[in-house]
């Protein structure tokens, strides 16, 4: 059942007289309980997409058009873009939660962690301080903080990066959200911790029956977690498919390039690392036509002139490319 539908989302930024189309007509669907991965290089627009969903886009950014349909239950659907900030406040942290890339800076340095987690309940469930605190402590235990009772009264600086991310997860999940947006949750963490956090995310998602929008640039993470994958490049979705399908049969040349870049353990050691030629174009310098045309190994003349549409070539598999 569809939970969140993003239709033709356009979020532009206006900096120094220039219009930067960070998110340029993105379509995305997340179903209840599923893990959708949104991958792309830095600057592809993935974070902006997630922030747009949360309604956290500030000047100089502006959501130009599109719809974000949130099907909170069978009866009610809201277009989040039509909602006032106040109304969104009721949804954020409550039905849709988010965790962020850098756990070190994501927590308020001068407030106790227990209080920061409990705050969610105070806002959304109108709980009293004491009770909220108790539930927060419980939550902390669930995410794996030992000695949660005592540690809830400490400041974030006493926790490691991985611990802090756990606290963030606690904060995000304590309200039983229907959707958790995880914006590069493991990028700033050690590889060993990464696995733990991902495990935790998956566990929480299953326990609370929450969908997860996982934003990342790491294909390994995608392989671990995702049910479905969207590939973003320069503000546009290039390909969307089931995770397994995508890995086996990447259709878009960009996706193919990404796959080839990953060094495999069984590769011949003498083989040079694969790269995608060229550089990601500057948002002010997007090529006319397909955004990937400047680097695509399979580029045709048509690609340079026209922008291809996102077409479903197989059920559940959409591609944006003139090859199809």
């Amino acid at each position, binding site marked *: 059942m569809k939970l969140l539908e993003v239709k033709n989302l356009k979020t532009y930024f206006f900096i120094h007289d220039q219009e930067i189309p960070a998110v340029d007509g993105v379509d995305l669907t997340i179903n209840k309980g599923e893990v959708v991965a949104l991958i792309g290089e830095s600057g592809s627009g993935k974070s902006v997409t997630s922030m747009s969903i*949360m309604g*956290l886009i*500030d*000047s*100089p950014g502006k959501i130009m058009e599109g719809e974000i349909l949130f099907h909170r239950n069978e009866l009610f659907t809201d277009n989040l873009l039509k909602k006032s900030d*106040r109304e969104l*406040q*009721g*949804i*954020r*942290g*409550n039905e849709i*939660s*988010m965790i*962020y890339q*850098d756990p070190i*800076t*994501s*927590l*308020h*340095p*001068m*407030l106790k962690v227990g209080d920061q987690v409990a*705050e*969610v309940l105070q*806002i*959304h469930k109108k709980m009293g301080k004491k009770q909220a605190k108790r539930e927060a402590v419980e939550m902390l235990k669930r995410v794996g903080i030992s000695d949660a009772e005592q540690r809830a009264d400490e*400041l974030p600086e006493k926790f490691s990066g991985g611990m802090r991310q756990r606290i*963030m997860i606690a*904060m995000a999940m304590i309200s039983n959200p229907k959707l958790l947006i995880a914006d590069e949750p493991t990028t700033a963490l050690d590889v060993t911790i990464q696995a733990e956090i991902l495990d935790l995310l998956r566990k929480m998602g299953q326990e609370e029956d929450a969908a997860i929008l996982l934003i990342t640039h790491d294909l390994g993470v995608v392989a671990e977690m995702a049910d479905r994958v969207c590939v973003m490049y320069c503000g546009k979705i290039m390909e969307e498919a089931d995770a397994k399908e995508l890995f086996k049969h990447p259709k878009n040349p960009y996706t193919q390039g990404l796959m080839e870049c990953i060094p495999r353990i069984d590769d011949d050691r003498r083989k040079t690392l694969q790269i995608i030629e060229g550089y990601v174009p500057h948002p002010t310098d997007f090529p006319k036509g397909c955004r990937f045309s400047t680097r695509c190994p399979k580029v045709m003349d048509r690609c340079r002139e026209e922008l291809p549409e996102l077409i479903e070539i197989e059920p559940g598999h959409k591609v944006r490319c003139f090859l199809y």
Partner: protein
Amino acid sequence: MKTEFAVNLGKKIFYQAIVLVMILVIILIASGIPTDFNVYYEYGQYHWSMSLEEVRLNIFQHFQGFLSGEIFDVVIAGESIGTLFRSAFVLSLKVLFGGTVLAFLIGVPKGILDSRKRGKSGTFKLLQSYIPLSIPDVLTVGLVQFGAIYLYYNDITFFGLGPIHFLGDESWLSTIYPIISISILPAAYMSRITASTIEDLYTKQFIITARGKGCSFGQILRQHMMKNIVFEILSSSPTIMAVMFSSLIIIERLFYYQGLGYHLIFFFSSYSLTPEQASAAFAVFIMGLAFFYYMLFMGFKGMKTWILPKIKES
């Protein structure tokens, strides 16, 4: 650990005490110079009005008077300097305190308001915050007086209070106009600090987290930003205090409000006192002022360095 901390603290206090004493000594020397000491010009040549030896003697006597405490008993217009100082001090304190409180009450909300509208009208709002900082005290007082005179001559009262006479210091009512006048500049400072702190913090990641949690702006302000705002204001308290003290002198002068500032100028420029009385009184007052100021300054500094640990330890 504790002893090390205590030793460090001791060192710091000692250092500060030394600085304070140095400042007081300098002030004593400067105020010991007789007020009629000058160079004058006559018939094509310059002359000193008294020899350096006399000046030195005067300074020396000054020190004696101060250290022995005699200086406080010097009588001016029927009152000893000590009593005069006490009453003037209280008067000034009322205005300073009232002014600070009022400045806070005006400045912080204004700063919050300013920060909310940021970005929507570009730099236009900046104008608003800079212009109050450019108003010279004279103009502030002039405008306040303008209003005060209007109210007074039209017998307008507020809640049964007034009409308040616009000069002098008879009752506590007379503190109102000086308090209003003195609060404008600090309020402008505080509003700027508040606004810029809020703006600075707004883009910080943990504020985004808070917003992501569904906190309203008010909640963010109260729970997540207030401590920082107060901290920033405390950090700038030396500047704000300095501005207030200077303004105090001018405002007391213009309102004929006989606090410390008024008297300081009075001693220096009045013809009804002998030079000895004048310099004695001036010395006591300025020492008191410097001492008070320094204590306040240290107090704020200490508060700053202590406030942070306090949060952590509670």
